[in-house]
């Protein structure tokens, strides 16, 4: 006849990219005659923002305003190969391929501008607003549009670039398991507060405090989208979801959203996020991918919090009211631990 509060903690790291490597991504970048750029990819945007983050990376590397860059994906007739959007590989692999392609296109653009301005390409900078000018002498300038037109119609240059990023495939030792899984890891720590009702067995997450280390937040709002949505999914994974409620029996498996439970907007917990950035030496501008690790620490944090609240260890996900009540019955009632 009481609710008990508990706190639980978990800390994790997460490998960025396909395990063992060997997962290439390619990119093609080219300018139309007006100096507007298309980035051709085959990466899939599932909602994680693949089109958006690669657009920012291209614009940064090319030195042009983001409005002048468009990412086109995925059409197998026009986009070069990409392994796919999974394993938190998109930002890291595709980002690097886009940088390489953009660098090549940029150097041609600067050569074209240099020829028009009759200077050395090495003396030119882009202002990120659509202009190319001599370092320290902004009046000696040409628009990217004019440089592109000159390249196309006068000089016979293609302002275009190609990129590929591939981490060589690692071996695995059958006897020791020695391997190179990935080149960088993201990190996270999470503390959740829960309330457990010892009459109904229901567990509610009432607060989340987290710290996520993501290399570099290439777009802070896209990172926030992943961290918020992912933590929600972690909470859902811990307390709500299962395709086999009586695993390993397959009986009573849900067939619709009435019986496949997920928290709704009325079940949310406030989530206070801190983002840390330790650039990956081989990440695009140091970026790592936050898309998967955001959910992981929530599962054990919730289980640890339930133990803290009532002294019942539930080592079997999901944490259901039935398991809570059985645990309470077996030990003769709630025995709060309050370790945190």
């Amino acid at each position, binding site marked *: 006849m009481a609710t008990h509060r508990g706190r639980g903690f978990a800390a994790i790291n997460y490998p960025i990219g396909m395990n063992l490597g060997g997962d290439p991504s390619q990119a093609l970048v080219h300018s139309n005659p007006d100096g507007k750029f298309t980035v051709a990819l085959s990466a899939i945007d599932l909602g994680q923002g693949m089109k958006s983050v690669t657009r920012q990376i291209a614009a940064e590397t090319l030195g042009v305003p983001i409005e002048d860059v468009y990412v086109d994906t995925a059409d197998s007739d026009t986009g070069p190969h990409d392994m796919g959007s999974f394993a938190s590989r998109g930002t890291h692999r595709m980002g690097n391929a886009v940088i390489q392609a953009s660098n090549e296109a940029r150097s041609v653009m600067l050569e074209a501008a240099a020829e028009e301005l009759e200077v050395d390409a090495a003396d030119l900078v882009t202002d990120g607003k659509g202009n190319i000018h001599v370092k320290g002498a902004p009046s000696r300038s040409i628009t990217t549009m004019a440089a592109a037109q000159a390249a196309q119609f006068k000089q016979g240059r293609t302002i275009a670039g190609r990129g590929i990023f591939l981490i060589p*495939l690692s071996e695995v030792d059958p006897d020791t398991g020695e391997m190179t899984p990935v080149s960088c890891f993201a990190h996270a720590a999470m503390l959740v507060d829960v309330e457990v009702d010892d009459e109904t067995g229901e567990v509610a997450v009432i607060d989340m405090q987290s710290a996520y280390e993501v290399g570099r937040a290439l*777009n802070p709002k896209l990172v926030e989208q992943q961290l918020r949505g992912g933590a929600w999914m972690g909470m859902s994974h811990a307390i709500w979801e299962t395709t086999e409620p009586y695993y390993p029996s397959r009986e009573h498996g849900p067939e619709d959203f009435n019986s496949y439970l997920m928290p709704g907007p009325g079940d949310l917990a406030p989530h206070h996020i801190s983002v840390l950035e330790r650039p990956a030496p081989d990440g695009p501008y140091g970026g790592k991918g936050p898309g998967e690790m955001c959910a992981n620490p929530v599962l054990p944090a919730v289980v640890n919090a339930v133990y803290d609240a009532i002294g019942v260890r539930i080592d079997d996900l999901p944490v259901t009211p039935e398991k809570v009540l059985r645990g309470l019955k077996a030990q003769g009632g709630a025995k709060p631990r309050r370790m945190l």
Partner: protein
Amino acid sequence: MIEFRKEFFADERDDDLNEIGKPTRRQDILGHVTGRSPFFDDHQFDGLLHLRCVRSPHHHARIRRVDTSQAEKMPGVVRVLTGKDVPTNLNTLLSLLDFGIDDEPILSDKKVAYRGEPVAAVIAATEAQARAAVKAVRVDWEVLPHVLDVEEAIKPGAPKVLDIYPNNKFIYHGKYDHQKLRFGDVEAAFASADHIVEGRYQMSPIEQAPIETCGAIAAPEQNDRYVCYTSTQALFFSLGTAAKVLQTPSSKLHFVGGTVGGGFGGKVDSIHEPLAILGAMLTGRPVKYAWDREEEMQVGAPRGAERWYIKDAVNRDGRITARKFIGYFDSGAYTRLSSYAIIKGVGHLPGPYTIPNVYADVYCVYTNRTPATAMRGFGITGVDFAIETHMDKVAETVGLNPIELRILNSYRDGDMKAHRREAKNCALVECCQVVAEKAGITLSAEARAATSLTGGGGERARIPNYTATDQNGRVEGFDTGSYARKSGSGPAAATAQPSTAQPARAPQPGSQPASRPASASRPEQAPPRADPPAKPPESRPAASRSGAMRFSSLSGFRRR
């Protein structure tokens, strides 16, 4: 509710960039809010046909006969497909990635190994007509015994889920029925430990549950090619698989995707495209094959269940000196990507901690349930749940605050990891400290002074002089030259040695809590200066591979 702690690692970053770091509006969000973003199903086709599959109601059964004659006569039915209509009736994902033996039919014609497995496909003018015709397909089943528990499935005498591997276990490197991790000598550490902490952890399967279900629409395009709009997460995986299954040059296939209504791993290998394209080839009309929500829930591959046994040797000061894992991935009825997941999981052990002795045996086990596939955190989520729940048991055993325990054992730059690579670019300590501070939890002076850049390396950088290895789980009859390829002529050639490794037993009650950890002074070092990354690292060309249809070999299992 969100803050950016720029002060951490500030000297490793140049934050003065133009577009990077800006909260720029998404390129696609105007399309999302106006309803114009084109998902695979948002394309009009004249004369669109609908494909639905006939599925097994049994966990395990032999197929005696599939009678489609009634279904073929039903209103609106254009064509009914069975296994013989599929040019290569095999999901070729594993051979495409050089990751194992292809083991799963597209349309099963000999036996089914999970409830929901497809045995025929009806193509009709409307979805309702396809559903009605599916019910009219008659299958004579010979129901077989089935097994659903991973530890039951590997016992001698258990029903055989897959004919290729003995005892329902995937064979790694042609050598063992599990993947090993061996670093140091855990048994020696257990013998001299102050505390032993054991645990058993179980995670049930869960659904990716994107709001958009999996599907594809294929249609004849001009010039003897086929266009396929698909929800896939991996355009070229899907294109390559379709080309192999249909024995069609990849140049004839035009795949369009890139805007997907959520994936979370469930759309990496959903394999809708081959049947949709085959339907378009055989009917000359556009064909849509998409799952309804019930199929998405119970037929669509979930995150596989995992069972982990963990045993730790712990000093009274809270340092974990050894960690032993026995892990069972429930791969379901076919391999799909589970063989890869185990390797990824093994590469992740023992978690972000520096532990001088680590042992793992991880099994990819076949059971008579829906085959598992990738899901957000594939290969990692389950074992992290086990590890982090276990860490709290260790904390309670030694009487340490759970956050202190993490920081104490955390890996740091320069440490040697259990898979024999140096730890770099670490940040676990700082994440723990930030959360403790926000949550109002007071840490010890050492924990507050710890950093990822200090205290690592030195002794901690060494590979142990002695690592205990073994031949447990050795199998014969599989080629070591290539990943899990069989030697000899038939599946009966392989025999397995009985495994002598015992799974860890149920957790023992923890010993009495020990005293607080002795403080250790750490030499302060200036963090190393690193230039901010301006250029991407040089990419190295992939080693050349034979086989026109292959991607790079991802197995890594071949000895070179």
